């Protein structure tokens, strides 16, 4: 009984500490589908980054990505970049590049076998979308995709990037 009380008390301490914590920072280095090593810090040096964790077997992901590509183009003035991160298992990793080629996607596509980086960034399943500030801070995250979510995401990005753009000016 004492152990359970201690456990519950510990969980309470953890959960109640959450709203007060500072913005989480993201950092990783992954290979892209052409074998090149890509560091998130290098992407952030060019501006904010929209990360989308997806997989070739994930139907909602495939529906969402064309919207993300269009959405990113609308924020070209803020230098917003899109990076797709495939979490396919090593068993199906070789199928990623032909899939991307067939779709004609030209944005960076990184490989995160087994989704280990996604899990480090608090994602459980694809699609999982994150907006990263130029300082590497996670400004926004969203799990799943439903038709119409891209509209809500656009509003969030507009809201989150507006102050940053103002400060830079």
């Amino acid at each position, binding site marked *: 009984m004492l152990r359970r009380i201690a456990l519950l008390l510990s969980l309470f*301490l*953890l959960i109640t500490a*959450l709203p007060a*914590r500072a913005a989480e920072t993201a950092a990783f280095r992954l290979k892209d589908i052409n074998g090149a090593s890509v560091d998130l810090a290098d992407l952030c040096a060019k501006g904010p980054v929209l990360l989308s964790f997806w997989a070739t*077997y994930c139907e909602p992901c495939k529906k969402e990505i064309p919207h993300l590509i269009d959405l990113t183009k609308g924020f070209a003035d803020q230098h917003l970049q899109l990076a797709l991160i495939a979490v*396919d298992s090593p068993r199906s990793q070789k199928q990623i590049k032909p899939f991307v*080629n067939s779709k004609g996607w030209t944005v960076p596509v990184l490989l995160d076998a087994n989704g280990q980086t996604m*899990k480090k960034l608090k994602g*459980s399943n694809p699609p999982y979308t994150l907006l990263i500030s130029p300082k590497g801070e996670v400004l926004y995250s969203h799990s799943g995709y439903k038709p*119409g979510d891209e509209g809500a995401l656009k509003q969030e990005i507009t809201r989150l990037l507006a102050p940053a753009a103002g400060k830079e000016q």
Partner: protein
Amino acid sequence: MRTALTLVLALGGLAAHAGDLSLTGLNTLRVGDGTVRNDLSGEDVDRRYAEDVLDLTLSRDAFRLNVATALVWPSEFPDAPPRTGGDEIEDLDLIRRTLEWSGPVNVQVGDVWTTFGNGLALSLYRDEALVNPRLTGNNRSELPTFWDSGADGALVEAQQGDLSLKALWGQTDYVGHVAGGNGEWSRPWGSLGGSLVRATGIPQNDDIRLGIQPTLDVVTREVYGTVRLGKLEVSLNHVDQHQLDSEARNAGAGGLATYGTLNAPLLGWTLFTEFKYYRFARQSLYFNAAPTVQREIPTKLIARSTHRVFANENETGLLLDLSRSWEGGHSMRFSGAWASHIDGNLLPRLKESLNAYQEYTAGWLMEFSPERHLELGAAYTEETSGWVPEGGDPVAGNAWYRRAGLSATLLVPVPVLRSVEVAGEYLHKTERASDEATSGVMLWAEIFPSTLWSLNVTADYEEASTMGQDWMGSAEMRADVHWPASVSHTLTLFAGRLRGGQVCSNGNCRIVAPFSGVKLSLSSSF
């Protein structure tokens, strides 16, 4: 163990308040009440479960501690969870823990997962499910998948320029001791890599309870390379495996594996070809997760007809895939895959005695606008279900199945409901030995009234010529709630009857028993 866990959580909570540590986590609560059908007895067995998995990460500077705990009253699958050596989780358990340091090199100690190359020589794959029921469980319709083949040990990774190195040492549940290294050199024109892995222990299929001594002392060597020229890419991977201990029961056992891919543009289309030739002894090592060389069919009903991946260890296979997208969002895809056991043949032979499998799929997506699309699909497969030993009887205990399926999905905007997706699939299955024919229809609709929630209603009907009629119906509601700003919750509620069968995700398939009842899942990230 529990005291240590409580201590970790208490320190984490206090430290988070003190602002010394960064803390993130994911909590998943699953509750269910219903029955599962035992496929041996045909009886419905009560299943009431409640389980909670807390995955917690504490970070400070270059250090990161990840712990995953399970609280079970009891588990959804009470047989054998992963990472506990087959012992059932009782009450509260620490199921995974990893300490990581990131500096010039990355060092992980505890539960570690990694992949060398394409996974032919080594793939320690993390299971996100709490459980991993084994063949010896109460319900044999829930087969093992070896999703979590992680090791308890240490992993060191380093990268300098174009060169990356990995070294691993540890103990796995399924094989025993494993140690190995991998190096890879990447350039814009391609890459070269190699691995060396040694494993000693008892293969999973040998029953430890019978007192069998370790029968495995195997060295696996691997080389692989990729050459790129624009959109053209060719890769080749070769592995050879041999037994070191000449006194062991499996003395002389060994194996080899070759895996290759070709990715090329072809008259505006993309051609992808995959080839495998796996001939591992003793059904391979269980930390391998070699490519299966088949497509994972994502549609719900037709997905049940995909090839059983546990036949992957002694098989030759070929996949041809042709796909193309057009401006405006239209895309088409055609694929064919063939596989069989190896009996002196380099390419697959469509003989029942060789566990032959063939599949053909076609898909056509028509996107008329972001809110309106139609997707059509078709699939045809033939397979000898079950395992046929080399030179064994192709009929006894096995069946030759032929399946054909059609699917259609339509997404349309609807006032007030925002958008609605309706879909239907039809599958016809024939089994030659018993002259049995089954037709199945699945219809479902999903509404998306807001960004916060969606509702899916599914009707699943199957009619068998020898087994009468069977209705399955279900409704699933999903809600995404963000509260407070730093915490996100996803709530999923399921009610109804769920047909059992093969379920595939991310290249891994498992067979689950039919379930009737209510399930609730609450996933919270913070």
